[in-house]
Every structure is written in C-alpha cells, then in structure tokens.
C-alpha cells in the first residue's frame, strides 16, 4: 500500500514537471507568435531592410543567416565527422592523442560563444585580414560547433555494433568500404542529430557573429562580403529600440527556420536509413 502510494506521488510529480516544461515552452513560443505575427507578411520576408530596419523586410538577414550557417557546416561537418571516424576507426584506441583530443573537444564545447567571437575577430578579421565577412564568421562558427559535431559523431560511430565490423572484414571488406557502406549509414541518425544541434546554435548565435561577420544590411553575395544574420538583426532592433514588433517578427522567423532545419534533417535521416 505504501509503495503504491509512493508510486502515485512520483507519477504525479513527473507528470507535473512535464506539464511545467511544456507550459513554459508553449508560453514563450505563444508570446513570440502573438507579439511577432503582426510584423510578418510577404514584404517582411522578401524585401531588404530599409532605414536601419524600421521599414522594409529582413530578406538580406535571412540569406545572411542561411549563407553563414551553410559555410560553417560545410567546414565543420567534414572535419568533425572525419576526426570522429579517424579516432574511432583508424587511430589506435586509448592513445594519448585520442584522450587529449577528447578532452579538448569537451573543454571547447563549454567555452562561451563570445570568446570564440573575440578569437575570430582578432585572428580572421584582423590578423588574416579577412575583414567582417561570411568567411570570417563561417570559420568562427565552424570552430565553435566543431567540438559538438565531433563528439556526437564519435558517439554515433561507437554505437554501431562491433559485429558489423568483424562480419564486414571477414567478408574481405576494407576499412573504407566498411565505413562507407555500413558504419556511416548506421551512424547517420546520430551524426545528423549533432548537425541539427550545431546548426541551431549557428543560427541562433549573435555575439560571435556580430564580431566576425559584421552587421551590414547589404545582400551578401560573395563569401568575402559582410553580412547581418537574423539573430544579430533581432539584437540590434531590440537594443537600439528600432522596433520591438519587428524584433519579435524576426524571432518568430528564426524559430521557423530552425523548425525547417529540423524537418529537413529528419527527412534526410529517414532517407538514409531507408536506403
């Protein structure tokens, strides 16, 4: 009887905490939707900002965000997945190098983004003379998300059953064939989860981007062009008191963009897993 009572209380507590979390989340999103929806129309999405964002839309910042995130992912994903594969499939296990790399990745993952921004500013923008640009920002974001991508890929690769490898090798497969045909497809869902998390961070990042890609409102075409992302735009709209309504409209579109990224990633996972 006592245990059953306890069970009930615990169940209720769990249920409550789930409810609270859901309520907070729904509250925030609801608030943003309510405050931001009025700003959103086709012009807001398709037109570039004018008068510092008081008028026009946010099209250049949407492009800037996608551009910058893509560049960051294009740099970080091959490097991170490659490092994970090297560590787990090629490198000897339990070496000093592997241990140091793991420790480095964990430490790097915990560093605040502004510190990456400062580094990117000093190193890429000034020292390498890349200026405020998609390239500087992309490189900085790539370094920022690299630890997450490496670690999640590593975990995903480790989770692939060892028997797959021995069976594959016993059939005469080389390491690379085994990785390509067996390990990567099996690890893909985990790797893609890491990419989603990282893309979310890149999309949402403001401080590091402001320091390295600048806040130009022009349309970024070349990789050497400066750009303003949606998160930076939101920050400036709010802090300079340009328009709260438009800041919320931008926030709403950031959430939509992240949802789209999640959806695309899930879709591609399902595609990979099916084939």
């Amino acid at each position, binding site marked *: 009887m006592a245990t059953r009572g306890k069970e009930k209380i615990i169940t209720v507590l769990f249920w409550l905490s789930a409810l609270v979390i859901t309520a907070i989340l729904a509250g925030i999103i609801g608030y943003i939707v309510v405050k931001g929806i009025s700003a959103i129309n086709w012009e807001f999405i398709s037109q570039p900002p004018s008068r510092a964002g008081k008028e026009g839309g946010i099209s250049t910042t949407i492009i800037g965000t996608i551009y910058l995130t893509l560049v960051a992912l294009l740099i970080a994903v091959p490097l991170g997945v490659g490092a994970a594969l090297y560590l787990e499939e090629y490198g000897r296990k339990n070496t000093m190098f592997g241990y140091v790399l793991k420790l480095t990745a964990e430490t790097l993952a915990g560093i605040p983004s502004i510190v990456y921004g400062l580094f990117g500013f000093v190193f890429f923008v000034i020292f390498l003379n890349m200026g405020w640009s998609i390239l500087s920002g992309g490189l900085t974001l790539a370094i920022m998300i690299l630890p997450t991508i490496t670690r999640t890929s590593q975990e995903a690769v480790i989770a692939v059953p060892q028997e797959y490898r021995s*069976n594959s*090798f*016993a059939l*005469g497969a080389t390491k690379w064939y085994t990785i390509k045909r067996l390990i990567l497809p099996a690890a893909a869902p985990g790797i893609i989860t890491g990419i989603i998390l990282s893309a979310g961070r890149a999309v949402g990042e403001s401080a590091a981007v402001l320091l390295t890609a600048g806040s130009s409102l022009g349309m970024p075409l070349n990789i050497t062009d400066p750009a303003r992302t949606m998160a930076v735009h939101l920050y400036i709209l709010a802090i300079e008191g340009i328009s709260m309504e438009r800041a919320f409209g931008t926030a709403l579109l950031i959430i939509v963009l992240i949802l789209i990224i999640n959806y695309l990633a899930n879709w591609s996972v399902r595609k990979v*897993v099916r084939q």
Partner: protein
Amino acid sequence: MKTKLECKEVKVFYKDFQALHGIDMDIFENRVTALIGPSGCGKSTFLRTINRLNELIEGTRTEGEIYLDEKNIYSNEIDVVALRKKVGMVFQKPSVFPMSIYENIAYGPKIHGIKNKGKLDSIVEKSLVAANLWQEVKDRIHKPAAGLSGGQQQRLVIARVLAVEPEVILMDEPASALDPISTSKLEELIGELKKQYTIVIVTHNMQQAARVSDFTGFFLNGFLIEYSKTNDLFVNPHDKKTEDYITGRFG
C-alpha cells in the same frame, strides 16, 4: 583426401598472454572438422588465425605458418582481402546488416567488384537457395533483414558468406543461439555444404560434433591435445584428458 589447410606451430599472443601454444593441424578438403574443448581453451582464437581476423584485435601477435593450398597465408605476398574471400566466417551471433535481405547477400560480391544487376540477382538467389533460405524469403528479399527469425538470420549470414564463393567456411558456434529445429536445419545444411566446401566448426555440443564432423580436434589451455577421425576420438580417445572431457568429467 586432399589437405586444404596445413597449420604449423601456430602460436597466438594477446599482449603477454599466450592463447595458443604451437598448433599443428592438417585440415582436409570437403570435410567437416570440429573443434571442441572447454571455454577459453583457444578454439575461437585458432579459428580466427585461418582468416587472419585476430589482426583486428589490438596487441595480438601470431607466429607460425598456415598453408592454404600450399601457400602460406602469413607470408608477405598474401592479400588479406583475397584470403578472406577464400576463407569465409560465420560468427556465433548472427549479425545481419541493417539493410535488406538482398543487400546483405550482395554486400560481399560488391566488395569484390561485382556490380552487374543481373549477376548480383543470380548470386543472391543461388546463395539463398544453397543456405536453404530461399523458399522462406523469396517474396521479401527487399525487406529489412532484421525482420527474420534467429535461425533465418543465421542462414542468411551463411548465405552472405556463400555469396563470395569461398573455399573454406569457418563457423564459430553457429548454433549456440538457435532453437532445436533451427539447429537441426543448420546441421543438415552443413552436411550439404561440405560437398563443395571445407568446413571448420567450433562447437560446445559434443553430440553435434559427432553428428556433423568427419574429424575432431580437442583443445585444452591453448594446446591441441588430440586430433583424429571423429568416430575414433569419441569411441576410442587416446589421451586421458580427452576421455575426461568427452565423458563429461570436466569442462
């Protein structure tokens, strides 16, 4: 009776630990050779020396020679990929790859450069037929292999090995995860396969060794204690330790 594999002074070390102490053993073509012995005596280790799979375990060292059709598989000129094409292996736990039945079977042939769809189709069918699985799965070969029963999975794994057209098949306790019906199906299959292949099978089940094999080797603590025709070994063991083991006095 032709000697297919000639093992000479085979020793294996896991770091400092010596798991095999100089195994000399001739394995004959188109015969089933069973390896028996208590847990940890080195049966699996020995089996893995024949396709050089021990090399995947860090810190292992193999000494001695194994001649496959008179060629030393441990010489420098040997290509392990070609070796493993000739010497297939079935593991204790059937491990089907997370893909369709068809893709599982085609996996090996594709490694060895076969891309032609028609050719792959016929290899897949032939291998499944040879593994006695075709009738059960022919309507769903493009469905995920994970949906098969344990016994079917083990036969699928055997079909996957047959698809690369090996000459020798190593089996490490292939029936240990199977129910009695699947086990007897597997034993029947082994009987058929030996017409074409040379089979080396590790088993803990002495009745099974007696039923399926022509020769039996008894391992103990990394030594090959006794090796002879299965019937002789079980009916008339020469070594006291063999006798103790097969009569169940230890192990």
